[in-house]
């Protein structure tokens, strides 16, 4: 692979990202899947980078799941999104930061629609006003949260306690990056690095000391795909998509997977368990699996935050071997302890996938 070839493409796909004052809209499902991730983002933005970030409490779902599962009509979606923009306007912000990749994609789609069909925008303004009495300004800058972390990746690296490096050998860790489909596949110019060779996570990995793995099924969807997962009978297809990716990345012996989408880390993580239980097949060394993280969790890890405080115990594939490899300390005994030290209970031990719980 010629890196300079990719750099040429990356140069072409750059976007403007606001420097400060973000209106942050959280993701519906990330808050339950990996709740530490968004907390880490807000903490880093505020405490480490000193940015003004408004963590909005009153926003709703963007309707993305319903929209992509064909149960919510586009007019409804646009009106709901208009309400989010109204919240931003009311809070006095102009830069919209979406935590969710699907929301980001959908906001982009709506803004593009309004750009090409102003009459639609007018109609939606009317809908929103009639329904809620609210008015809104369109965001001046729309970014995905990963865009913002990408923008400040070097600042984060400068403050980090650890690097994505094997502490014993000094070799960079091999990192697979997985970009949510809705990040740039629909609007390549709205994503850093475009659709074919997105750079948003690669840039973080490089800046934080890791080595990016480009494997044949890199572009493939994780399998979440809304409809596939929601209907149980279709879940086999969802599972097979993840399996295809694992099989393809396996020869490169990756140390971890970093994602920027709500569904991807969930499925890439949990399907490793399902596959191991169904077929006895595990990936990674010593049946450890390949740990899957959100970019915020990785940022938190290298900043030296307590792994259990940033929610790494919620991962099915245990993070411990990787933490050991980097040299990040953790207390094994407090993995399943609550905020006040109470026992949260230990999950069932899988049959094949190694589980660290002592």
């Amino acid at each position, binding site marked *: *692979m*010629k890196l300079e*070839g990719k750099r040429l493409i990356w140069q072409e796909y750059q976007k403007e990202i606001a420097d400060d004052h973000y209106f942050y809209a959280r993701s519906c499902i990330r808050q339950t899947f990996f709740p530490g991730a968004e907390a880490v983002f807000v903490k880093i933005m505020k405490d480490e980078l000193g940015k003004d970030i408004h963590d909005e409490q009153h926003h709703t779902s963007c309707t993305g799941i319903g929209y992509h599962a064909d149960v919510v009509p586009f007019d409804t979606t646009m009106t709901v999104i208009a309400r989010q923009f109204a919240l931003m306007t009311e809070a006095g912000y102009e830069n919209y930061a979406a935590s969710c990749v699907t929301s980001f994609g959908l906001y982009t789609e709506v803004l593009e629609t309004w750009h090409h069909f102003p009459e639609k925008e007018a109609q939606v303004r009317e809908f929103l006003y009639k329904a809620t009495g609210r008015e809104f300004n369109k965001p001046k800058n729309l970014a995905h949260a990963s865009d913002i972390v990408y923008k400040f990746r070097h600042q984060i690296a400068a403050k980090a306690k650890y690097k994505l490096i094997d502490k014993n050998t000094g070799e960079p860790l091999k990192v697979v990056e997985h970009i949510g489909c809705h990040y740039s596949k629909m609007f390549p110019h709205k994503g850093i690095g*475009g659709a074919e060779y997105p750079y948003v996570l690669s840039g973080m990995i490089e800046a934080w000391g890791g080595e990016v793995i*480009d494997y*044949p*099924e890199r572009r493939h969807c994780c399998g979440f795909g809304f409809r596939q997962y929601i209907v149980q009978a279709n879940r086999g297809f969802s599972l097979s998509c993840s399996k295809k990716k694992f099989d393809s990345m396996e*020869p*490169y012996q990756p140390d971890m997977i970093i994602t920027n989408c709500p569904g991807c880390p969930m499925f890439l993580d949990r399907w490793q368990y399902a596959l191991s239980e169904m077929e006895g097949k595990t990936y990674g060394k010593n049946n450890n699996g390949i740990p899957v993280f959100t970019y915020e969790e990785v940022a938190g890890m290298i900043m030296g935050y307590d792994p259990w405080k940033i929610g790494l115990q919620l991962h099915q594939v245990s993070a411990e071997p990787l933490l050991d490899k980097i040299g990040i300390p953790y207390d094994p005994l407090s993995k399943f302890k609550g905020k006040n030290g109470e026992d949260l209970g230990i999950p069932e031990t899988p049959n094949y996938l190694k589980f660290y719980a002592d």
Partner: protein
Amino acid sequence: MQKHIVVIGAGPAGLESSANLSNLGFRVTLVEKEEVTGGHLNKWHALFPSLASGKHTIEAIVKGLNPGIKIQTATKVTGIEAVNDYFTVSGHNGWQEKADAVVLTTGFQLFDSHRKEEYGYGIYENVITSADLEKQFASGKEFVNRQGKKPERVGFVHCVGSRDEKVNNLHCSKVCCITAVKQAIEVKQMIPEADVFCFYMDLRMFGRHYEELYKQAQEKYNIQFIRGRLSESTEDKDGNIIVKVEDTLLGKPLRIKVGLLVLMAGMEFPPATKALTNMLGLKNVSDGFIQPLDEVLHSNLTEIPGVFIAGTCSGPKSVSDTMADARSAALAVAEYLK
């Protein structure tokens, strides 16, 4: 007084029309932006369907040139101006000539395959273009991929930059199908044990002996033709290219690993030439190429009396078609200057 004609572009079309015009008794100046004449043909190892040498072909054409022809190389034409009944043609280096007629034989430019970024040209070492392959053939070196290995499988992707509205090229570049067949055969001749695959949308074997060459490719060389357009290519650990197409005749997606993937880059109208045609006020139609006055009756004439076109500046052509077009342009010029 002997009439003077400026021919712009010294590829096969420019050379051949100059030779004919000179033989018809005109004073001819042939302008070429490069140091040497011959155009794309200089870089082409062998021509379909006979596998005639590109070098020998251009030599034979040059041999036919009358010594009276003035050849102005390394001169990029920057201005053409119609003044009364003549044209003033000027170059970037101060060269200037008056001409009674101008023949545009500016040719084509090869589609820049970087633009199909999902194909990985410039990113994956073993994705090359048909032109790169031709250079490799011409070098006479042992046929290896970028890892220095003899590829066990070689794939050819048809219609790269042609028939693709995603890169604004609706047109068919005409010669890529038969070129792929030719190059596939050449690869097979060099590595008989290799498996060669062509990924095509349609096979347009329009010329004489093309179908025969295609049949030979199947029969004698066992080259496999898979109907389906490349969706994306990726690289595996060993630098092999993984190709994803749909086998449209089976209605199933197909995945195959090749050691070398050749993109059959199409023909485009060069933006640099567009400046010239704009200067003249010539019409470029949606495919970008110059529109003749009438595609059937006056294929070498333009809307501007005294400005003639020949070769691939008026649309993709094979070398033999280009040569015939160049001769016909010479006659059209002679008719005009009579």
